[in-house]
């Protein structure tokens, strides 16, 4: 099955920061050096574990953590270096972990805590995005959507234009930045086809985007 025409790309038209699919990614900075242990979850099930070493001596600015690969039993190394108890990723304290899904139905969230299991340190749960996190995504299906932060009830609306075959090859414009927390700004967003959306989180958030009204493009010419 080719990635371009993975059926999930076209059937999962909405986005949910708490249940990542191929069209969404979470960018999180750990900030403090140390050893972290993560769990990939789908609903309430733990699908896989992984480790992140946050090390000042490491020059890696972004550790791409493919949750689909980690959760797949066929790919045990998770695209990384396999440590004794699971795959290990390394990143600089000012760098970022990028949680994404390379294929399949997705629906993943991650839970990461210090490996020393200190109960006083709160675990990071991607279902509750923290200030500084970024939720990036693409809405492929043309139409009108609602955006909602389920933790603050802030909402907004976004419209994705229908693709047009023009006189030059279409390239989407740069991604749209959106502030998300107690409020969402801007509240009305106009996107071109497959233009990216970067939600910069400034207060706890779970971002859910749902299709309100599809746009099936111009009606075919009669005859």
């Amino acid at each position: 099955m080719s990635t371009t025409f993975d059926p999930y790309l076209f059937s999962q038209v909405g986005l949910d920061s708490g249940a990542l699919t191929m069209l969404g990614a979470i960018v999180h900075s750990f900030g403090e050096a140390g050893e972290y242990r993560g769990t990939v979850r789908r609903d309430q099930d733990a699908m896989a574990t992984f480790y992140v070493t946050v090390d000042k001596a490491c020059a890696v600015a972004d550790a791409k953590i493919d949750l689909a690969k980690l959760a797949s039993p066929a790919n045990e190394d998770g695209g990384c270096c396999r440590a004794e108890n699971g795959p290990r990723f390394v990143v600089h304290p000012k760098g970022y972990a990028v949680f994404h899904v390379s294929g399949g139905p997705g629906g993943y969230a991650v839970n990461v805590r210090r490996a020393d299991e200190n109960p006083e340190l709160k675990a990071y749960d991607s279902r509750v995005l923290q200030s500084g996190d970024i939720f990036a995504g693409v809405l492929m299906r043309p139409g009108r959507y609602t955006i909602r932060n389920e933790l603050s009830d802030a909402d907004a609306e976004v419209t994705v234009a229908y693709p047009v075959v023009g006189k030059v090859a279409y390239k989407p414009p740069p991604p749209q930045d959106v502030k998300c927390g107690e409020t969402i700004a801007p509240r009305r967003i106009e996107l071109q086809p497959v233009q990216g959306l970067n939600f910069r989180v400034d207060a706890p958030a779970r971002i859910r985007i749902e299709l309100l009204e599809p746009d099936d493009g111009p009606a075919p010419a009669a005859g």
Partner: protein
Amino acid sequence: MSDITIAASANGFHKLFNELRDDFHFSKSDSASFGPFSASYAVAVHLQGGNLALNDDNTIDVTDLEIVWDTLEVQVCFTLPELVPSFCIVPDPWNGCLVGFPGIGGESICAPLDFSGLVSEITDLKATLITNYYVDPARQPGWSDLDAEVNGHPNQWRLFIDPVWVHIDPIDIPATAGNLLENAVKDAINALIPSWVPGWVKDLVWAAVGPILDFVVGLLGIVGTIEDWLSNLLGSTFDLLGALETAIADYFASENPIDLFEDPFPVLQASGGLIPVKIPIRNLTATVNSKEMVVVADVGA
């Protein structure tokens, strides 16, 4: 003065040449990657036509000899734009991108083109005659000349047309190549898109590709016409014309004699319990003039 002189008229020489020409066949295939695209080809050719002229300066001119491309198939492969292009999530302070959203898609497609049936021309083939003494490698060291003849492995004097040069015109790809390429790419993309995908996905794919010819020309880095680009790709980049020129030169000059003489040469067949009569041939040479080919040789001891 030579002991033996044999002559063949220009007409007779022409017949010998035509037989040789008709037996020529060449086929080749190759593929290579050129960064943003890869290409492959498969060809098979034979020769036809040609005007032969014997000259008084002991040379042979062949003009208007045609190369018929019985098979001339080219395939160009490249990657389509990503359906969801990568975009920047966290810019870096130096105007670059620190963290990006991974792109989705970027499938490879191949556009096959079939130009079988084209005809090219060998504009210039100049040759001389050369002789070569051939000892059959299958001949056993202890065999007499008679043993060698009986076993079908006699020594031979062989007469070759030795091209001084062969020049083939560039492959004349027709001006319809642009349309063929456009249709081949369109067919390949249509074949790639599953029938079950909704219409907006198809429109998204075609929007990302844009006008097909512009997309292909930009991707392949074509400057000038598509037919010239294809002709150059085959003829020069793959050096197909060079390989064909070499194959033709080798075919005439060392692989296929225009005539041959067994040595010793049989004069009388064996009969009535007597062994055959054979005379050894030495110092065989061949020349041409405007009227005929002349072969002279001595009778050896």
